[in-house]
């Protein structure tokens, strides 16, 4: 889309109903910018794209006498949306009127960044991901971002919209905590520290690390801090790389905060523009927010490989108000975060105990030789693994077996079915269409052996589950992955212990570190 650039002195146009938008150039001249579609074609006037407009844009001050559209505000408040997203519900004319009265600002989709171009939504500056089209909207070569295209195409000529009227949550009921449970002493200590962080006024950006073991009851210890944020009439954001986490937390948070509008944002959510005070969003959905949240909680900062992490951090930074408080919540902090905490650069609190007070099960090592060769050539599984599975099944326990590679799943499942023909064995992977169903059947005890390459739903508590890792020497099993995997065992207060066995063909540092990590946590007070 292009804008007409009208010199301010053009008296004939001064009273034009759309001409109230004035960016200043260095010479002190001012211009109106008016969307091409809102005017009759005027060949004598230049047309520009926001991406090509180099001077800073001076937007009009908010006109308090203008009656703004509350629905438009609900959609835009806290967000930065593509014009296309908004014109799907409101007319360009109405949007531009709000611009004229200072309630909405336009900004460019593709921006220059250290001599390159970058997408102003997802931050991509990789030239491979920024492609060119001959654009029918601006009749010119237009750069667009391929990286975040599934959220609507960002290109040189399509502006973003942001809301600049009131930002306060003024329409909320008094928030209240509907959760009746009691925090353990370790949880209480962390919860108090978090409340203190939220209540301390922000003068600059602050971070805080909550290092809590798997099964510590992380969600509950957040409740008091979330409540403190909501009581201050400020929106609270929980960010996570995983849709699973959103789906799992949403019902729990809705119950915990009955007076608060709690919404989950993930690919496939019903209303991606819903208004909310407490939000749980995946990395991608976060990209729709802009400079809004004073309190951000990042859940499971470690759950994905680093590249995802980088995207999450970009998205969080963009969605956060400046200044803001970022709370990291994890069982296995990445190295940089861990050393920042240990060196006192980031304040932190450790929750080394599970909510039920029992220690974490410590993994055991079992050497099994060249298992891969035997599996591929003879379709056989190692004796030690089969023996352990047999014993586990005899004790009426369920087996959760991790593999390093998805393509090994069929062979392993086939071999297991061959050895244990009476036992219900299945496999599940991250993008499995039947994932939910399989997890359900496993929780109900209908599947006895579940083979997988992925950590299932974060909070999944399958009573009495025993964990094996086949091929624990694989590079994919980092220290933190192994700690997370071990954390699946003994979560239930009724059965706080269980086996975690690393079946390997060569001990790795990651295995040793994971065991050391767990033992160290068990020794903390």
């Amino acid at each position: 889309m292009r804008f007409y650039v009208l010199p301010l002195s053009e008296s004939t146009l001064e009273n034009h109903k759309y001409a109230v938008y004035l960016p200043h150039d260095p010479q002190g001249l001012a211009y109106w910018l008016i969307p091409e579609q809102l005017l009759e074609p005027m060949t004598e006037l230049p047309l520009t794209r926001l991406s090509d407009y180099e001077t800073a844009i001076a937007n009009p001050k908010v006109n308090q006498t203008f009656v703004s559209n509350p629905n438009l505000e609900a959609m835009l408040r806290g967000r930065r949306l593509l014009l296309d997203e908004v014109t799907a519900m409101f007319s360009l004319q109405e949007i531009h009127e709000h611009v004229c009265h200072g309630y909405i600002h336009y900004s460019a989709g593709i921006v220059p960044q250290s001599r390159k171009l970058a997408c102003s939504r997802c931050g991509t500056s990789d030239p491979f991901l920024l492609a060119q089209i001959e654009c029918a909207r601006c009749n010119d070569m237009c750069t667009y971002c391929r990286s975040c295209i599934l959220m609507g195409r960002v290109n040189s000529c399509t502006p973003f919209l942001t809301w600049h009227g009131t930002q306060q949550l003024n329409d909320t009921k008094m928030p209240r905590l509907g959760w009746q449970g009691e925090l353990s002493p370790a949880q209480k200590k962390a919860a108090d520290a978090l409340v203190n962080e939220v209540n301390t006024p922000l003068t600059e950006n602050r971070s805080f690390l909550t290092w809590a073991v798997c099964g510590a009851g992380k969600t509950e210890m957040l409740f008091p801090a979330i409540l403190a944020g909501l009581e201050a009439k400020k929106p609270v954001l929980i960010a996570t790389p995983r849709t699973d986490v959103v789906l799992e937390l949403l019902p729990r948070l809705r119950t915990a905060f009955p007076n608060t509008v709690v919404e989950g944002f993930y690919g496939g959510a019903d209303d991606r523009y819903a208004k909310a005070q407490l939000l749980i969003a995946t990395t991608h959905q976060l990209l729709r927010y802009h400079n809004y949240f004073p309190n951000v909680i990042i859940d499971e900062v470690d759950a994905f490989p680093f590249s995802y992490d980088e995207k999450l951090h970009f998205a969080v930074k963009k969605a956060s108000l400046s200044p803001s408080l970022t709370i990291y919540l994890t069982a296995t902090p990445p190295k940089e975060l861990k050393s920042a905490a240990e060196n006192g650069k980031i304040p932190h609190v450790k929750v080394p105990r599970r909510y039920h007070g029992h220690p974490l099960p410590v993994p055991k090592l079992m050497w099994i030789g060249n298992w891969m060769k035997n599996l591929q050539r003879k379709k056989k599984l190692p004796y030690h693994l089969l023996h352990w599975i047999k014993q586990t099944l005899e004790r009426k326990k369920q087996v959760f077996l991790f593999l390093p590679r998805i393509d090994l799943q069929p062979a392993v499942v086939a071999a297991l079915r061959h050895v244990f023909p009476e036992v219900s064995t299945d496999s599940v992977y991250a993008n499995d269409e039947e994932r939910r169903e399989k997890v359900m059947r496993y929780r109900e005890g209908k599947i006895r052996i579940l083979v997988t390459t992925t950590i299932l739903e974060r909070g999944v508590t399958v009573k009495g589950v025993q964990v094996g890792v086949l091929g624990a020497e694989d590079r994919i099993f980092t220290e933190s992955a192994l700690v997370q995997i071990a954390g699946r065992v003994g979560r239930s207060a009724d059965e706080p212990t269980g086996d975690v066995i690393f079946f390997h063909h060569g001990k790795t540092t990651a295995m040793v570190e994971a065991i050391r990590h767990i033992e160290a946590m068990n020794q903390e007070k």
Partner: protein
Amino acid sequence: MHWREHVQANNRCVYCLERFHEDVSWSWLLGITQESILCPDCAEKLERITDISCEMCGRPALSKEESRHASFKAEPEKQCHDCLLWKGKGGIMPVQHRALYTYTPFLQEVIARFKYRGDAEIARLFSGDLKKASRELGHIDIVTVIPLMEERLWERGFNQGLLLAEKFPYVELLERTGAAEKQSKRHRQARIEALDGVFQLTEKGMNVSYDGKRILLIDDIYTTGATLHAAASVFYTNGAKEIFGLTVARATGSLKKTFNT
């Protein structure tokens, strides 16, 4: 290090955007084959149509017995029920059509991102192969594309047909009369009727002579053939001799719900 590792290309997949390695052979070193732009995982999911059962519309073959090679034919003989139906409608001249791929759920996703999300770059996946597939047609006088409605053009920012035809010296000759409604949800019969008179020549198109010309139409998807026939009828009325259609995807059976944004 083995010599092969030195010449392994480090490419990026035009669809999934991931990096991938390609074992390159001597032919590549000698400049005979071109680099792949699709990673092996994505490439494997595309189903190239190599055998057809109808020599007119290029319907993919379902059994060995009815199978014929998918090349264009000088004299198409074997024709399917639908094509005979077109013929029976009277006055409609034939359009020999071929598609590169079966419209599988994967290709549906690819085309959806191309068309509805506006990821123009995906055209590169098909434009070269469309050009190649046209070689066996011999001399073609005019290559053109199906026009978009104004609002669609604004939404997408481009006409996908033009991008698919980028390897051809195409000309834009047609425009929509504005009579057609949104097509995807409608019954086949209803669509065939609705599409009559959907297209007309642009001003520029009216200054071109079609007498005795062989014309090739490029489009993205072939569903019932109604769009191609509607466009072809404009040229046949103006004296064209033979019209061919070349598309990326051939819809065969039931489709997933068409996704729109």
